[in-house]
């Protein structure tokens, strides 16, 4: 079952990568909306809050339909604000689903990320319920269909003393309490959303809650434009003694209606239960087999200098600095394996190369590049591509790409800059590091830290002695091979003629020495 889940993910992941590549072509990786699908939900929640507060001023639970009609037709800007409220809620559903799909297809839903996955699923469910209450508040024919079907489904729950459906049979006026309860839920559930959002990002350092400002404003502008040009109208009022012939149907919030109408209520609950169970099982089903599961990072405490850079750079708050117990003054890094996703970013951030997942620490990387140089012998005319296997246009899977030698790495953010220096000093004409786009790094901040280490002297920086003209950083998502090709072409054209002379390289000299190593 697990292998089936993984097998079916691959082609879908390829499709997603191609779509992302197309959107990057149109908007650039920084403004690609799919890269910001998660943070966009926050923007949309803010829009919903602002527009919802305005609508709340004019809504009356005693006259739900009449007051909504007045908002739509009489209140200044009411029609547009109501439309914006609805479009923002629909866009939020789209953004949540795209975000969840992306996490699922990229295998970012298991291990320490399981909490984010499950809380995200609950968040979507609560959001859909919140939308249901919002639609019912209008009390038009669409609300009638949603209310009746919803009540029919809820009535099989053994917690209700009286069938909820009887509220809508027309025995009497619909009680105000019904609309009060709906309004209360419609206002209270977003607070639950806030709590869930906090839980959702609780395991992240520096959670990115907002996309770039231009992306946020573009989205709000587009939705406002649609609200003005094509505002929503109000359907005929609900009539409990007549079923509507036609009703408007919101695909994003009413998708379950056709299923609910053909299935008995218990069947609907079985479907809901099956979907919920599948969502809960995703972290288990997408988890790699034990022998292929990446191991959490470890620290060689003997050599750790206590510089704290790994704790600063870890995007998952998996590293803390604690007091040493061996009498030395400095702190020492400690990895919480239950939080570590084995991204390896700490390996790139550690100047003395003493932290990182087993076989992927800076020292392991140096040993690897030494083997690479011995095997492939890059010359002054060669460019070596260090390609992230998660993205980088998929070039990480090749041995050569457009006559360049390829050295794959699991996450470019985990690359130790000494590897780049080693390659340059070993005589390679140039080193091109291809990472995922910074806005779409699978390990959140890998590309960002990599760029800072290569060109902005962030700790574990590429040494000043390395000719920067021979080093290039290119961002490319999994579906952006052409970006790699263009980047490679540009790089080749800009490369200076002379390379470093070949010669023996002192591996140890490439890493900052830990105090124990310096001591006699």
């Amino acid at each position, binding site marked *: 079952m697990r292998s089936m889940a993984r097998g079916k993910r691959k082609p879908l992941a390829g499709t997603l990568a191609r779509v992302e590549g197309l959107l990057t*072509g*149109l*908007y650039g990786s920084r403004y690609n909306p799919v890269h910001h699908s998660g943070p966009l939900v926050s923007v949309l929640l803010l829009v919903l809050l602002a527009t919802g507060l305005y609508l709340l001023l004019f809504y009356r639970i005693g006259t739900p339909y009449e007051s909504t009609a007045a908002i739509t037709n009489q209140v200044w800007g009411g029609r547009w604000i109501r439309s914006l409220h*609805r*479009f923002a809620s*629909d*866009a939020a559903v*789209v953004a949540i689903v795209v975000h969840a799909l992306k996490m699922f297809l990229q295998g970012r839903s298991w291990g320490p990320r399981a909490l984010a996955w499950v809380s995200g699923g609950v968040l979507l469910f609560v959001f859909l319920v919140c939308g249901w209450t919002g639609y019912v508040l209008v009390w038009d024919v669409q609300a009638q*269909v949603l209310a009746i079907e919803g009540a029919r489904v809820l009535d099989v729950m*053994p917690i209700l*003393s*009286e*069938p909820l*459906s*009887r509220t809508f*049979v*027309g*025995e009497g006026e619909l009680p105000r309490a019904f609309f009060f309860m709906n309004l209360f839920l419609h206002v209270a559930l977003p607070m639950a959303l806030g709590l869930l959002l906090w839980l959702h990002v609780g395991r992240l350092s520096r959670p990115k809650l907002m996309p770039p400002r231009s992306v946020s404003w*573009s989205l709000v502008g*587009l*939705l406002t*434009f*649609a609200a003005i040009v*094509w505002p*929503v*109208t109000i359907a005929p009022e609900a009539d*409990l*003694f*007549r*079923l*509507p*012939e*036609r*009703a*408007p*149907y*919101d*695909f*994003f919030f009413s998708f379950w209606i056709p299923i609910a109408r053909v299935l008995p209520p218990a069947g609907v609950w079985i479907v809901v239960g099956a979907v919920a169970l599948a969502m809960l099982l995703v972290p288990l089903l997408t988890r790699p087999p034990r022998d292929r599961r990446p191991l959490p990072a470890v620290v060689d405490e003997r050599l750790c200098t206590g510089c704290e850079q790994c704790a600063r750079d870890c995007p998952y708050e998996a590293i803390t600095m604690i007091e040493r117990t061996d009498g030395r003054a400095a702190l020492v890094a400690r990895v919480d394996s239950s939080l570590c996703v084995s991204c390896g970013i700490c390996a790139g951030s550690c100047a003395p190369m003493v932290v990182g997942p087993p076989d992927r620490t800076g020292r392991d990387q140096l040993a690897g590049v030494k083997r690479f140089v011995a095997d492939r012998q890059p010359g002054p005319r060669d460019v070596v591509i260090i390609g992230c296997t998660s993205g980088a246009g998929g070039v990480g899977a090749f041995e050569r790409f457009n006559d360049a030698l390829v050295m794959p790495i699991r996450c470019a953010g985990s690359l130790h800059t000494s590897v780049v220096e080693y390659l340059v000093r070993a005589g390679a004409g140039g080193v091109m590091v291809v990472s995922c786009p910074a806005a779409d790094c699978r390990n959140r901040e890998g590309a960002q830290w990599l760029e800072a280490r290569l060109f902005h002297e962030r700790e574990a920086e590429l040494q000043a002695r390395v000719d920067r003209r021979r080093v290039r950083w290119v961002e490319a998502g999994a579906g952006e091979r052409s970006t790699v090709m263009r980047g490679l072409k540009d790089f080749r054209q800009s490369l200076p003629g002379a390379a470093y002379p070949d010669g023996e390289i002192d591996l140890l000299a490439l890493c900052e020495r830990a105090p124990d190593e310096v001591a006699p």
Partner: protein
Amino acid sequence: MKLRLRHLVGTLVAVAGVFIMAALTRVPWDVGETHAFVRLSWRTPGEFVEECRRPSAEELAALPVHMRREEICEGRMISYRLRVAIDGRAVIDESVRAAGAREDRPLYVYRDLPVSPGDHEILVRWDPERPAGARRVDGRSTPGGRGAVDGLAITATVRLEPREIALVTYDRNLRRFILRGAGT
């Protein structure tokens, strides 16, 4: 030029995406219902009855002295029989039990009976299924009205258009069935 074209295409794609989403929020949906409906919906208080018997001398002897009684009574809420006929044809004949895990709640009925549009004669009966020899305990009817109902019936003719609903319900002030809604 190429960049401008890309921006233009990007803007068009974004606008198209938002308008497709806006269209999906109001898909005209044919509810697909051509029937009319006779709806039965009411809540009536149930009737509490006791069935008593005299214990045998052996039974009495087995009980502690303070628990010996002349009569042992067991009480329960009785069920009601719902019978519905439309145009002379019986469509429902079933027993309805009081709600709740201990069957101590009122009795609820909620049914939608599809009928073809046009004139229909409806007969609804609601009768207690009191066991022979059981004794009604008036002070213990369930909540939901002023005491248990003895038996209710209604006969009516309705004229219904497609998707219209005629409602048969219980008026607890009049203590009888009434007909409401379309075609009445």
